[in-house]
């Protein structure tokens, strides 16, 4: 028995020793910024990759025509220094910044941009991730290296928000099959502040500072994106100092980091709004009714009463632990210019909701549940994402509040896919939805237009099935409006109309919760400047601005020499132990059989 304990001790020692050795610091090293990424990088090919992790990476390695300012998301020159439009607003001329180089030394010209957009227009595979940006393009050309001319089919105010990475023509013109091209030959030729040098799928991506970057090289010499499938593990990695930035934290994880000495919490405004759809009588793009929405919900008075019966402040306090803001207008407050707050909000008021339903003729039955004038009880289904805990909590609260005004709610937690399918088919009464808005509001505003309703074949991306002439007019006018102040006004009017129609109740905007190691880095540029975020920006500012502390400059490297010696030591000890055991066995061999 004693022998076995000895063996066990040696094995245990062997496991621990190399790790103790690995913890030994060694001098030297450059500033490495390590970011925990909770989502997969689906593709390194900028024409195909769409996941947030992938687009985050593309923003760092490829140029775009314009970018969003870190202060307030306004369109800012990037590869294009300046631009002008023709009087009919159909021709856009961009002047490309001279002297910008690809990481292989070739100049970045207007021809590269023209090539990129042209490929997206004509090669369906190249349109996979960003095809919507070029949908309205008539033609793209580069009369010379410094000039890019884009003609659009109709006037489009979103031309300064073409968020598609521009690729080098001399590399990509050799790629015949975009759909089958992995773009994983390192280093990847780009022109952003960082250059991609190493990539292990599902594990990490390594980038080094680009010394040729036109704005000047970043202060961080190396940037690593490390995959964590589980944010609990990324929080632990941050605590331990294995990563410098952790993102997408839950309120509980965020709170748990409050007392950590070398960790700074970042509570940013989120880009997402969280809404409850109220089916106003879904119809397809041909106007034919579809789905199974409750007839009472076609009455705008019922929809408004439902909105009024919900205590949004309680949802923010209880579901988000206070990390969020009460919902009102359609666009989240992070986009300051476009965010609209209802001047007379329908605050939480069950008595008023009850009175309104009474006045509209929805009388309570003997069971306390209201009836439509035709006598149908107001039993509503509420579809939730079964995979999201916030949905379950919201569901329980809403069920209770609506019961107070005589509306029975049955919760229906289903898979994410089913939520998508059933909302598209109009098969719901109430449903949870939510979108991440872009700095340019066009994308989410479009979701509420008649044109977004599903085609008779079932395609399309509807949201709340609002189909309202007045809203559509406002939407079309803002898209064609080039005066920023006037466009903002039209966007706000559209939001007001959406709020009046109450086809959805915007419940809250949740904060984006992050944390970083304050002992190693400071000076992250947040976007927007006030209450902004570091990760998932519309730009490269967060990582570009990161300032390493002296501690980060003297990063610890693993001392593999020591590790190897310890390993040799273990092998020697193990050998000696085996030898002793064998000799012991030989000595007792006579005792056997």
């Amino acid at each position, binding site marked *: 028995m004693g022998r076995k304990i000895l063996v066990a001790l040696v094995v245990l020692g062997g*496991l*621990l020793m*190399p*790790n*103790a050795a*690995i913890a030994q610091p060694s001098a030297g090293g450059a500033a490495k910024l390590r970011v925990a990424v909770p989502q*997969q990088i*689906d*593709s390194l*090919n900028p024409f*195909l990759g*769409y996941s947030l992790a992938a687009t985050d990476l593309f923003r760092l390695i490829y140029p775009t025509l314009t970018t969003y300012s870190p202060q307030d998301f306004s369109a800012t020159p990037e590869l294009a220094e300046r631009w002008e439009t023709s009087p009919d607003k159909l021709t856009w001329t961009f002047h490309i910044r001279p002297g910008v180089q690809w990481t292989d030394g070739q100049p970045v010209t207007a021809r590269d941009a023209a090539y990129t957009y042209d490929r997206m227009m004509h090669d*369906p595979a190249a*349109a*996979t991730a960003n*095809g*919507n940006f070029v*949908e309205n393009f008539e033609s793209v050309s580069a009369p010379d290296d410094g000039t890019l001319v884009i003609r659009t089919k109709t006037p489009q105010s979103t031309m300064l928000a073409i968020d598609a990475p521009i690729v080098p023509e001399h590399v990509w013109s050799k790629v015949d099959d975009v*759909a*089958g091209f*992995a773009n994983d030959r390192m280093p990847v030729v780009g022109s952003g502040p960082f250059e991609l040098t*190493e990539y*292990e*799928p*599902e*594990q*990490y991506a*390594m980038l080094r500072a680009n010394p040729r970057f036109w704005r000047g090289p970043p202060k961080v010499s190396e940037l*690593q994106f490390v*995959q*964590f*499938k*589980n944010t*609990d*593990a990324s929080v*632990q*990695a941050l605590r*331990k100092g*294995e990563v410098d930035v952790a993102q997408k934290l839950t309120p509980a994880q965020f709170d748990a980091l409050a007392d950590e000495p070398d960790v700074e919490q970042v509570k940013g405004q989120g880009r997402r709004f969280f809404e409850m759809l109220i089916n106003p009588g879904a119809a397809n793009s041909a106007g034919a009714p579809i789905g199974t929405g409750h007839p009472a919900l076609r009455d705008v008075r019922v929809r408004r009463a439902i909105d009024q019966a919900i205590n949004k402040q309680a949802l923010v306090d209880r579901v988000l632990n206070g990390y969020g803001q009460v919902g009102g207008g359609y666009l989240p407050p992070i986009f300051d210019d476009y965010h609209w707050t209802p001047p007379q909000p329908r605050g939480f008021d069950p008595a008023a909701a009850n009175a309104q339903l009474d006045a509209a003729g929805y009388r309570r039955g003997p069971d306390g549940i209201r009836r439509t004038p035709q006598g149908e009880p107001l039993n509503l289904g509420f579809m939730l994402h079964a*995979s999201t805990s916030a949905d379950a909590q919201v569901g329980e609260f809403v069920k209770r509040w609506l019961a107070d005004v005589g509306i029975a709610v049955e919760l229906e937690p289903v898979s*994410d*896919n*089913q939520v*998508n*399918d059933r909302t598209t088919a109009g098969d719901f009464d109430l449903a949870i939805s939510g979108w991440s808005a872009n700095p340019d509001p066009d*994308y989410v505003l479009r979701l509420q237009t008649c044109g*977004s309703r599903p*085609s008779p074949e*079932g*395609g399309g*991306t509807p949201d709340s099935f609002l189909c309202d002439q007045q809203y559509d007019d406002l939407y079309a006018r803002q898209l064609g409006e080039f005066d920023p102040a006037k466009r903002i006004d039209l966007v706000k009017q559209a939001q007001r109309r959406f709020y009046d129609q109450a086809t959805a109740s915007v419940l809250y905007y949740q904060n984006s919760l992050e944390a970083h190691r304050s002992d190693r880095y400071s000076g992250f540029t947040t976007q927007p400047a006030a209450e902004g975020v570091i990760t998932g920006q519309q730009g490269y500012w967060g990582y570009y601005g990161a300032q390493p502390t002296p501690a980060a400059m003297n990063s610890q*490297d*693993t001392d*593999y020499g020591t*590790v*190897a010696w310890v*390993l040799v030591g273990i092998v020697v000890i193990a050998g000696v132990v085996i030898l002793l055991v064998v000799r012991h066995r030989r000595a007792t061999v006579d*005792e*056997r*059989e």
Partner: protein
Amino acid sequence: MADSTAEAEDRAEHVPSGHVRSGGGWPGYIARKLGGGLVSVFLVAVLGFFLFRVLPGDPVRTMTRGAPVSAEQIEQLRQRFGLDQPLWKQFLDFLGALLRGDLGTSYTYSRPVAELIAERFWPTVLLVGTATVLAVVLGLWIGTRAAWRHGGGFDKASTSIALTLWSVPTFWLGLIVLMVFGVGVGPIPGLFPVGGMSSPDTPAELIPQVLDVARHLVLPSLTMVAVIYAQYLMVMRSSLLEEMGADYLTTARAKGLREDLVRRRHAVPNALLPTVTLIFLHLGLVVGGAITVETVYSWPGLGLLTFEALRVPDLPLLQGTFIVLAGSVIVMNVVADLLYRVLDPRVRAA
């Protein structure tokens, strides 16, 4: 000519039957088992194809994820993935491609499914293999001792610990292990990395690379061992208990053999029989069982790939992982059958 064949048949009939085992020859046995395995693999492929088409959801909508794409773009995507074809045509194409080893193209990664699975296969084999070897060694060792002195303190303590760990939720156990040994609690320092399979800044030489992977392997395999060793322990314990009353052990003792030799040389080899086949049966299942551990520790294996594919859902990828996971169960079943015949003379005689 006709005569000579008849003669040959005659001779064949007169081969002394003592050389042929009554249960059929090895070639016949192997052919039967392999044939059965192939039929199962085919059924799995058929099932995989139709099962994932029953799942609610329009694949093209999944691919475009609600992005505002035009009708032409949707049509092109349908064509690219063959979704515009009737179901039976899609099925025939799928079978044809499968025979060529082509599992289709993943929607999410825009890459061949076979390539994605090949990339993730070895990390899972490494994790599951290490954990299984450790769990088997630990389970057999403790199980033997528990049975030999059954009813005693060691028996009670070891079986209750094993059964407790077996019934604990893997995800929770994984997080506890991660916090204690990855981050450190109180006097225990954080010794091991909390996630991934390798660190990005490891030198390219072999020794640092191996050490780095070994360090990352410790916590996930420890978690897996803790969960799965109980089954080996229990099987070993019960099969050894069955052997313990046997006459040959009394004979061995009567020869004056020391107690631990009686156990090691006589009882354990006989009791090992059911355990060995169990190990192979479990090996097939355990690849799928690694999903939770891989998710907790961000281990880039097949389990994690399956989990991601399910969330999207990515039909070709799901189909591919399903075939590979189910296929590995079938292969291990065949191996277990063959092995059992080698190990147990009674099966040969039957």
